[in-house]
């Protein structure tokens, strides 16, 4: 048998939308098979069908040529299918080890045999270079490590077919390198991998074949080595995509955001998460904070936006001291914020799309009168944003946000924040999880903001993005700003050195 897994003519419907429409996907043994498609094309849905989370209306699944029924994840596990979800599913107040063995605990006389499990986990972890601390609590570890836990979970269960749903969206470039290596190694051992990503570089680097979906329909399966990136993105979006951004000459105005000597305490240890940081962002410029994840960028943003308290320093917005004012006050003064964690901060997942789109506006005169919500205005506004930012979902503005695809959730947040037309937009990884078409659009929006004389503070781990759209780069290392660079004068390699802390520049 040539194929380990065959999904034949799969159709899966949700209220208002056919997420998968007659899709066929065949996975060879030992191959890395990429799945490419726009946000909401149905990739996660298709994988969830294979993992037994959804039952398809039509179609069959074959394992080694034999038809199988996968009614729930236990069935999938029994067939050797494992999945790392787009949004991880770990128990936060359990340790790494407890999470890995959860559900497949081996016991003796009713007691857990933890020692054996620990030995096996450590073996696997060493063999694949998946470094984890088995006794750390999930809530205390980075997303990168959480992902390694998810991978170990699959390996611990001896899964042979591994599904990775956008594993790289949450990783730093270094972690992505590592993950690619691990995936190749797993494939060379005969494991078969299904890999969802929006980054064509990654597909080029590791995948053998690639299946392209568009709006729930199957487009084609191609040989990666024989197809160019441009061709792939055109297949997926249905038009040519241009990621090079046209930018007008920069014309910097008065400072909008001024940060003076900001200090934020660290959650663990006595070191400061943000250590005496000062910088300015002026009208008409996009300033990017670059750095390796965990060097204080998140804490910096939380402090600027008023979500966490600070130890010292001053923050000015258009000359007004906003160091101690409420979040609402900052918003009204013209600050908007695309947060790092879309599920935790950015969305009320149980609210409808419409209610999420008015999350920062519901109290303004246009949307309420005497304390009563004006639904008609809210509906019209939601429809406008959905149309403008191409937010795709099953039931339009009434869709429960939780059911939307990851990328479309992100688009909803970006739409809301940009449409506030802020004086300063603080955007943390604004294009995380978006397809190339959407990235192009969001980048254009950011540049438009800048050209209209607004200020943008961009926090990104993505070097391409940093080099492409910023006017100025601040490099953050161990809580300090170690360099203030001009993207036109610095090479990617040099930037990397600054980020790694092996080079320091003069802060301008």
């Amino acid at each position, binding site marked *: 048998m040539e194929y380990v897994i065959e999904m034949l003519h799969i159709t899966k419907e949700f*209220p208002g939308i056919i997420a998968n429409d007659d899709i066929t996907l065949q996975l060879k043994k030992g191959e890395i098979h990429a799945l490419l498609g726009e946000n909401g094309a149905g990739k996660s849905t298709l994988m969830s069908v294979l993992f037994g989370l959804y039952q398809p209306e039509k179609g069959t699944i074959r394992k080694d040529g034999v038809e199988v029924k996968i009614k729930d994840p236990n069935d999938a596990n029994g067939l050797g299918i494992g999945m790392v979800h787009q949004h991880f599913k770990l128990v936060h107040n359990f340790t790494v080890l407890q999470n890995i063995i959860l559900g497949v605990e081996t016991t003796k006389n009713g007691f857990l045999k933890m020692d054996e499990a620990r030995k096996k986990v450590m073996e696997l972890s060493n063999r694949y270079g998946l470094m984890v601390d088995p006794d750390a609590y999930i809530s205390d570890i980075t997303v990168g490590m959480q992902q390694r836990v998810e991978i170990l979970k699959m390996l611990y269960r001896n899964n042979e077919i591994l599904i990775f749903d956008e594993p790289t969206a949450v990783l730093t470039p270094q972690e992505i390198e590592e993950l690619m290596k691990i995936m190749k190694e797993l494939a060379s051992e005969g494991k078969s991998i299904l890999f969802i990503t929006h980054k064509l570089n990654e597909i080029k680097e590791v995948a053998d074949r690639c299946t392209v979906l568009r709006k729930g329909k199957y487009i084609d399966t191609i040989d990666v080595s024989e197809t160019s990136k441009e061709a792939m993105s055109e297949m997926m979006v249905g038009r040519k995509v241009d990621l090079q951004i046209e930018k007008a000459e920069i014309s910097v105005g008065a400072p909008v955001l001024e940060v003076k000597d900001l200090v934020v305490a660290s959650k663990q240890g006595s070191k400061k998460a943000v250590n005496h940081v000062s910088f300015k962002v002026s009208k008409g410029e996009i300033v990017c904070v670059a750095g390796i994840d965990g060097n204080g960028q998140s804490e910096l943003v939380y402090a600027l*936006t008023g*979500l966490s308290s600070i130890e010292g320093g001053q923050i000015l917005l258009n000359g007004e001291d906003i160091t101690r004012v*409420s*979040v*609402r*006050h*900052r*918003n009204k003064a013209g600050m908007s*914020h695309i*947060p790092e964690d879309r599920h*935790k*901060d*950015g*969305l*009320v*997942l*149980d*609210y409808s799309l419409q*209610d999420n789109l008015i*999350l*920062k506006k*519901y*109290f303004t005169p246009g949307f*309420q009168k005497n*304390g*009563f*919500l004006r639904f008609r205005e809210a509906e019209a506004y939601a429809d406008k944003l959905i149309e403008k930012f191409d937010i795709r979902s099953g039931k339009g503005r009434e869709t429960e946000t939780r059911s939307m695809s990851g990328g479309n959730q992100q688009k909803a947040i970006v739409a809301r924040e940009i449409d506030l037309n802020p004086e300063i937009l603080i955007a943390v990884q604004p294009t995380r999880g978006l397809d190339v078409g959407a990235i192009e659009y969001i980048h254009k929006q950011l540049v438009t903001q800048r050209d209209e004389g607004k200020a943008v503070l961009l926090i990104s781990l993505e070097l391409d993005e940093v080099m492409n759209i910023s006017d100025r780069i601040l490099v953050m290392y161990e809580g300090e700003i170690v360099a203030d660079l001009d993207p036109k004068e610095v090479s990617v390699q040099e930037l990397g050195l600054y980020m790694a802390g092996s080079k320091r520049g003069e802060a301008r």
Partner: protein
Amino acid sequence: MKQLQSILEKDSFSRTISSIFSILIGLLFGFIILLVSNPTQAVDGFLIILKGGFSTHAKGIGQVLYFATPLILTGLSVGFAFKTGLFNIGAPGQFIMGAFTAVYIGVKWTFLPAPWHWIVALLGATIVGGLWALIPGILKAYLNVHEVIATIMMNYIGMYLANFLVKSYIYDSKKALSMNVADTAVLPKAGLDKIFYNTMGTTKDLSTVNCGIFIAIIIAIIIYIILNKTTFGYELKACGFSQDASKYAGINDKRNLVTSMVISGMLAGLGGGLLYLSGGNGRRIKVVDVLAIEGFNGIPVALLALSNPIGTIFSAIFISYITQGGHYLQTLNFVPEVIDIIIACIIYFSAFSLFFKDYIFRFIKNRVQSMEEKKQERLEDGGEE
């Protein structure tokens, strides 16, 4: 069939259906308990429960509404808190403190003229109920004390304090109950006395029901409007669903939490006032070391209504109805304790089976679908012949 399916897709419909299904499961379970405890009379007993308030005609129905009144309020109290992400287990304490306040004002403040007397008494009950919830609210918001622990604590403080206060100020030692409130403090009948009575010879045997039931229904509608139509409700629900996202949106989550807890307490307190300001044949406060059952029953009422304020009206009436039915079981030699167990089983099983509502609902949907498929097949078969 297609129509049926499209109705099934509707959210509100699926909720109603799952509530009704849960009730059926609860009833089934009650029947099993009846069978176990008294096999020979199980069927008769079950019929009596089903007949509920109807067993004693118009007056019985009146009584169902009378006892549903406080349940609507405590159900709203629990449901409102729940919608905003809080577990208010403190309804019994808030309820009894409200009850005491209402009766105290009803007995002592006789200087107030007719409508004002009962209105002030109700307002007093509402305010004190709110204050009783303010403490757990503040503890939760500013010291991160879990509201379940704090409200349970406040329940016992409330119970003992109310006992002490009743004994000290408004005790009728001959009956070992709280005193009768002044006539001016009794809630008006609002015409309900013309409907809910039985005639015994020449005298009318009146039900206790009064305008309290209207007040309860109006409050339910107001709560529905607050939750669904106002910016205030929008904020409260956002806090309930996700505190982090609310904070991010600039909503003052701490203030909202306290406000929400206080409103919840006010509802329970008002419930206490409505039950006890009911004149000569109405309830009076007993001095016993038991937490107010009306308070606890707010939990299943809210669960069964899926915290929907309008649904709460119906689920409270259902639970009151079943409870009344239970009282009449005594005619069949069931021991009162067993009756309590049976009724409690029906109530709580109904509420808890809702946790499986998704399963129940999927089951119904699959049924409809397979029925449709069969019909389709039959049609196709017919076509071939």
